[in-house]
């Protein structure tokens, strides 16, 4: 009898131990993504800040990410860390008299930069403004949806990261996960961001976006040409933003940003502000430009102008 009791007790103890173990594993599985529960999880957990990494460490991380993304998206993914080119300060100009509000730039950007499709994240927002009011943001409409654009009585103003010279967003980051590079592009280290969203509160242009959910990026839609600080796939719980398509613009055979290339009316101009013969300098010289919310002293490198 007593043997039985002892046996029962042992069985109970074992099951209880098992139950506790199960509970621990369950909680662990909730916290750690089960599929990636390998050494790479810990490697990325202990990864240092991007700017504190030496070259060999960087190479190792890029290789790890390439391997991880290639497996996940079933294609050969490249993750670059091309530094800012010497003597380059990127600038952007947008012609408000040409923009028709078609939003091709919005979706061209999403395709190029691997934003989440579910839920949708857009780095560019096109505001519909009333001609009578001019640039009056409070009366703008982002969710216009007519049969055809442009609509009578309205003009359109796309807004994206203004790549400020004096960015309020980088200043507030408690862990220096976001900063301005030498070519003027404001970047985020997606492996360092803690997701506090202070930068989103600080940005006067609504240019920062948060991954509220694990980004839904179908393998077929994934652009395999990526940059570590740019358009590589983002994890959940971090902030992202427009990076002037650095995976294209920083290369030796540099291409225009996707939004410039896709614009059907040629409203978007891009180039090197330090090069006197660049198109962007030509616009600044010959058109009359303005910047958004100049009173905040953010000093955007994103200029708006009216060509006609």
């Amino acid at each position: 009898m007593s043997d039985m009791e002892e046996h029962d007790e042992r069985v109970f103890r074992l099951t209880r131990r098992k139950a506790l173990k199960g509970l621990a594993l369950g909680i662990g599985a909730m916290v750690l993504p089960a599929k990636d529960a390998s050494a790479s999880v810990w490697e990325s957990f202990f990864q240092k800040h991007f700017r504190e990494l030496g070259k060999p460490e960087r190479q190792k991380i890029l290789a790890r990410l390439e391997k991880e993304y290639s497996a996940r998206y079933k294609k050969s993914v490249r993750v670059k860390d091309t530094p800012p080119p010497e003597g380059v300060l990127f600038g952007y100009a947008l012609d408000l008299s040409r923009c028709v509000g078609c939003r091709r730039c919005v979706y061209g950007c999403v395709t190029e930069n691997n934003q989440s499709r579910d839920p949708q994240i857009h780095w560019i927002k096109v505001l519909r403004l009333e001609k009578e009011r001019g640039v009056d943001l409070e009366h703008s409409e982002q969710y216009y949806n007519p049969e055809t654009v442009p609509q009578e009585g309205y003009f359109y103003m796309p807004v994206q990261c203004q790549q400020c010279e004096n960015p309020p967003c980088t200043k507030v980051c408690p862990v220096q996960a976001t900063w301005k590079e030498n070519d003027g592009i404001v970047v985020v280290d997606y492996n360092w961001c803690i997701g506090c969203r202070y930068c989103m509160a600080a940005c006067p242009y609504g240019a920062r976006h948060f991954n509220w959910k694990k980004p839904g990026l179908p393998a077929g839609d994934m652009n395999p040409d990526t940059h570590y600080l740019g358009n590589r796939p983002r994890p959940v719980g971090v902030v992202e933003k427009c990076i002037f398509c650095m995976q294209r613009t920083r290369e030796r055979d540099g291409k225009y940003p996707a939004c410039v290339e896709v614009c059907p009316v040629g409203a978007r101009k891009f180039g090197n502000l330090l090069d006197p013969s660049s198109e962007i300098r030509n616009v600044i010289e010959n058109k009359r430009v303005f910047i958004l919310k100049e009173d905040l002293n953010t000093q955007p490198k994103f200029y708006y102008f009216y060509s006609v």
Partner: protein
Amino acid sequence: MHKIWAFIRGCFLLLRKGSKVYYAWVSALLVLVVVGGFAYANQMYYGLIVTAMRDQVSWGFYISNFTFCVGVAAAAILLVIPAYVYHWKPIKEIAILGELVAVSAIVMCLLFVTVDLGRPDRFWHLIPKIGLLNFPQSLLAWDVVVLNTYLVLNFSIAGHMLYKYYYRREPNMKYVFPLLLFSIPAAISIHTVTAFLFNGLAARPFWNASILAPRFLASAFCSGPAGMILMFQVIRKWTNFDVQDKAIFKIAELIAYAMFINLFLLGAELFKEYYSDTAHLAPVKYLFQGLDGHSDLVSYIWTAMIFNTTAFFLFLIPQTRENFVTLNIGCVLMFIGVYIEKGMGLVIPGFVPDVLGDFYEYSPTGTEIMVTIGIWATGLLVYTLLLRIAVPIMNGDFHVGEDGVNPFIGDKLFLVRKRVVVEEEDFDTP
């Protein structure tokens, strides 16, 4: 070192002893903590998408509660100043209860910030040297520093005093007094820094007003002490610890002054916004009147306004201040009023309308509410357990035994309603 271990061991022995009410109360809180924990596990699994926060309103209920709790924590100095600067005895006896409120409130603050993080697994990035704290540039980095300093400060002051009393000795004031004095600017700094955190953002005109920090402080000295007055009455009814009426009425009087300043500063702010009538009026209009058909916050803020004003008069008039019915009504009104005003009423209009004129009306989801309840329960649990230790020590019911090693536990019940004493009090109250 030996003695510290003996003290800690004694405390744990003590925590396990208590009346049925004590056990029921602690278990109820534990249930809420577990419910909150499950809600948080759910949020961890799916991401912050389970909250109502979105890109337009990127902070919500968690940061609102955080802001309010910083105020409650800062209010401890309303006891420290009369007790240790003016050496007023009735409050000196209870100052330690205020410090324990500060400890519990800061624990809640840290939890609210943590649950708001998208990547809590990377919290170590905030630790200087190991991570990369952006100090002194980021006000959030400042907040990390001052909140933790304030927590350590209050914990060590209260801890040292209780430790000494446990061994039936007087606290070493040579060490404690400078810390107590330092806790005064530290309390002011936690709320100032939290105000600056919002204040410094030029992108959000609703917060970008220099009156914000003074308003924060004024309202903090209303809500925190109002909560304490209620708590002190519970403590003296349910434990052997006595809190004098004189102390309670003095705190109530101080609250009246603080609320006057709070209402005055609010009026100054409203005048500036409405009279100058610029584009920056939009968030204020959204909050108080509703804007373009968006009016989710209007009923809340007017509730807060009515509560705060009513409470102000209840605290101002000596007859209502010194009548426990009206006093307690005032405390409840003020606590709720400031909770709305300094919580959702402060955080949400900063985001509505958003920087590009988009309207996203925010109200918290079930997950956010459950996590929040879990954190409040954690705060109350921490405070209960701290009181379980502090109250018997200060009454002399818990101290080291004759052998100098094992603890003597005189109060084995802790939470018992003192019926007889209450009746006596009713007759004896002058």
